[in-house]
């Protein structure tokens, strides 16, 4: 297949999958089979694009032109390739996990769940491959809308309220800040294409540049930069597979991906020099503040959500430093955090399925009953903290190298402090699980590991987290290619 066909196939496959799932609604096994098949086919399809991209090709595709000069177009570049690989690859594992989770918890409306999930993936891939800001915005909004039914899946009052927060923050910021930023770029640059080195005219003054950057940053609330982060903990009301793939990988990474992409391909790192000090400070604040909230959260998913908020700001911080090494770190962290965090969420969902426990304080001694789950949790935790032999170490290494390059000691302080805090909110979970005795209440309710698909999925991602530490070749190569100006 030619590269154009591959792009089109990658975008249409999840849509076709969604249709198939909807039609097979009455037959659960067939429906799940279609989900898995689509996920595998999608990953295979995306994988085929890897070699051309690594070889320096940038295949593209233009669909239609809703506004004159502003087509809906796609172009695969290294950063998008990396994001697409992560999202589509983890969709396979997440589908296995979903089967176990939804069946184990006897969730309702499973067809709607799988359909929306497939649609979310289609939107995510379209974001990853978007060739201009208009296309990116189109699918950014689409992703908000198709994940809304997943967030409000349970249909309870709590879910409805969370849905309101989700929609109000994500849509409010994107309409109020991101859209005018995009139209402003179109107004002054006459294009919204992503080009290496940026597209903004040279005569633009530094003040306007700062305002525009702020509009982009606050408009991309999916990146959960404070003060627009509250939708993420609210979204935890969704079933855990949604929190795992969408609110640790696809949706939030779409946010930081947009930020990095805009900084590299719309502004260009050279143009931004000196304009990002406030951003470094704000990202640093978000990292520390979110870590502290995570430290005090007893609900496991809430703790993980705030950990995500803080980790997302690592990416923003790394990008805002503008050093080549830190930009590589930003791209790498999109991949490494994804693997680690999905493992942690898988573990949280596994505990919930087996025991219906949601609070950290209820987990005493659970490691003895659920060794696989808690071992995976441990690997994910190492990755979050940034210790070898987990993948998080690799991106943190580059990040710290970048910080030292720039001599930005404040940022270094933030990173070190947050490393300690993340150790402080993740390691006690492990301590409780493995070293505390089972509570009397737990002894009265014996249980074993979660269903097999769940254990399989979290073992796979934990293994992936380790593998990425040992073989970071492909993501690293893609991240470095991102900086090559043609």
């Amino acid at each position: 297949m030619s590269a154009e066909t591959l792009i089109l196939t990658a975008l249409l496959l999840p849509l076709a999958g969604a249709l198939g799932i909807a039609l097979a609604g009455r037959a659960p096994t067939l429906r799940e089979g279609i989900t898995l098949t689509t996920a595998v086919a999608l990953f295979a399809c995306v994988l085929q694009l890897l070699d051309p991209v690594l070889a320096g090709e940038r295949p593209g595709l233009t669909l239609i032109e809703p506004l004159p000069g502003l087509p809906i177009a796609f172009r695969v570049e290294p950063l998008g390739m990396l994001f697409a690989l992560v999202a589509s690859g983890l969709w396979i594992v997440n589908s296995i996990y979903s089967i176990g989770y939804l069946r184990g918890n006897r969730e309702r409306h499973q067809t709607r769940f799988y359909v929306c999930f497939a649609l979310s993936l289609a939107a995510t891939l379209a974001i990853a491959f978007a060739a201009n800001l208009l296309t990116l915005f189109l699918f950014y909004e689409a992703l908000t809308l198709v994940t809304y039914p997943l967030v409000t899946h349970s249909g309870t009052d709590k879910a409805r309220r969370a849905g309101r927060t989700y929609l109000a923050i994500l849509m409010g910021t994107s309409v109020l800040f991101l859209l005018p930023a995009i139209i402003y770029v179109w107004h002054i640059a006459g294009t919204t294409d992503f080009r290496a080195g940026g597209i903004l005219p040279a005569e633009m003054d530094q003040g306007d540049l700062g305002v525009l950057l702020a509009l982009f940053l606050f408009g991309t609330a999916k990146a959960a930069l404070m003060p627009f982060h509250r939708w993420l903990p609210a979204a935890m009301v969704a079933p855990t597979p949604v929190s795992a793939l969408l609110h640790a990988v696809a949706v939030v990474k779409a946010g930081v991906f947009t930020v990095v992409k805009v900084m590299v391909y719309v502004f260009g790192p050279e143009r931004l020099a000196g304009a990002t000090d406030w951003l470094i400070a704000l990202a640093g604040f978000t990292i520390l503040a979110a870590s502290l909230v995570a430290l005090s959260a007893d609900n496991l998913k809430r703790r993980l959500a705030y950990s995500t908020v803080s980790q997302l700001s690592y990416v923003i911080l790394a990008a805002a430093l503008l050093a080549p090494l830190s930009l590589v770190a930003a791209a790498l962290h999109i991949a490494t955090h994804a693997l680690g965090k999905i493992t942690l969420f898988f573990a949280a969902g596994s505990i919930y399925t087996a025991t219906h426990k949601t609070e950290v304080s209820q987990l005493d001694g659970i490691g003895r009953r659920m060794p696989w789950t808690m071992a995976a949790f441990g690997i994910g935790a190492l990755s979050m903290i940034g210790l070898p032999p987990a993948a998080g170490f690799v991106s943190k290494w580059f990040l710290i190298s970048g910080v030292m390059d720039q001599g930005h000691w404040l940022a270094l302080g933030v990173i070190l402090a947050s490393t300690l805090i993340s150790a402080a909110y993740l390691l006690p979970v492990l301590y409780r699980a493995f070293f505390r005795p089972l509570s009397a209440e737990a002894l009265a309710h014996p249980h074993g590991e979660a269903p097999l698909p769940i254990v399989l999925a979290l073992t796979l991602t934990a293994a992936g987290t380790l593998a990425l530490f040992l073989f970071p070749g492909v993501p690293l190569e893609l991240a470095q290619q991102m900086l090559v100006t043609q």
Partner: protein
Amino acid sequence: MSLSAQLPALQVVLPLLSAPLAVLLRRGWLAFAVVTAAAWAAFAIAIGLWLQVDALPSNGVISYHIGSWAPPWGIEYRIDRLTSFVLVLVSGMAALVLPYSRASIAREIPQESHYLFYAMLGLCLAGLLGITITGDAFNVFVFLEISSLSAYVLIALGRDRRALAASYRYLIMGSIGATFIVIGIGFLYLMTGTLNLADMAARIGAIESSRPVLAALAFLTVGISLKLALFPLHQWLPNAYTYAPSAVTAFLAATATKVSVYVLIRFYFSVFGDSLVFHKLPLPQLMLWLSLLALFAASFIAIFQDNLKRLFAYSSVGQIGYITLGLSFDSVNGLTASIVHLFNHGIAKAAIFLLIGALVVGIARPGAAPPAPTFDRLAGLARRMPLTSFGIVIAGLSLIGVPGTAGFISKWYLVLAALEKGQLWLVGAILLSSLLAVAYVWRFVEAAYFQAPPPGRELKREAPLSLLIPAWVLVLASVWFGLDTSLTLGSAVEVAEGLVRHRP
């Protein structure tokens, strides 16, 4: 002369003749057949005229002389790109609403009045097409009265007794508006000695400072603003839309106010366009502030309505604010936004009102008359009527202006026009107001998708296909025109450039 040369006359005459014919035939289904055939013929003619305009060089005009009396003495029908664009919208909407109306009015209007409904709809269509196509100022007034009087009757046909009061109120306010318009036209006739709009435009430059011309502009502005429901002259609209039969609401919402906007554009840009009159009165500023008021006040009121039809009626007042806001910029991009939004809002809002018509059929008890679509009756609607509910959501997204829908295109141009003016606060205001639309559309989403249906109403009971198909055609159109805009945006840009370019 060949038939194709007579299309401009047939465009109006066919629907006009269908009305008395419907009255003579008297039988419901015969009247239906006649008026529907006329509407489809009008649609076909509008497309034919579109193709004829297409074949002309850029900014070309088809000029048709009624009774072969040459203008400026005789009445001239004048069709340019903008005319043709509005003709297609109006006749297309009639062609969709009529097939829908048969099943819809069967439940909403007593059997013996059906022929009256079709006759009045044919008449209203003829009036609206006439306003659009004519190049003669007095003719505009005559057709305006034809369309308005038939609209009053159509609204009064609603089953709810409050429809009569709503219709009466519309009659009073509409007549005041029409009087203002005729006074304005009178002044212009007095000063220029001509009723032909093109002729008037050529002569007005010489007397642009005279007081009667300024007075004419003021009278026309107020009169037309009443007709197009510019805030705060909109009071007739919410009740009229709420209590009229569903098919009537959908038709009027998509066409009547839009044709009034067309008349406003004609007078502002074609008649007064070449002169400096416009800048002697603070009209753009006035229009700007009233539009902003409409955006916020009307959309805000919409959020708190209990009746879904009323909610979307107020939303119409707000959305008209976007159209007039674009006009007030007095620039190519602003006018483009207005013209595109006139179309995009028309189809989205018609889709919603058609679907509400389907919805009241679904929530009615078997055999009983359809109740008002209040929110307590909408609980759990998505389970009973999935297609209807989902259609309202999609069309609602277009009202919000989500990318991928037609509403986004309008918003893009509106924001671009505001940026050009350097008015950053205005950009914020436009975008902030579109979030109010999220609030009212989401009220429906939460009621339909999250609340449990009342006991005994869990069963799926979708509306008949004759109601769903026309509505869904419009729903899909409001997505289609968000992605492929060569038709809508292409003509809007061409029109706007033509109208604004020869500005001093």
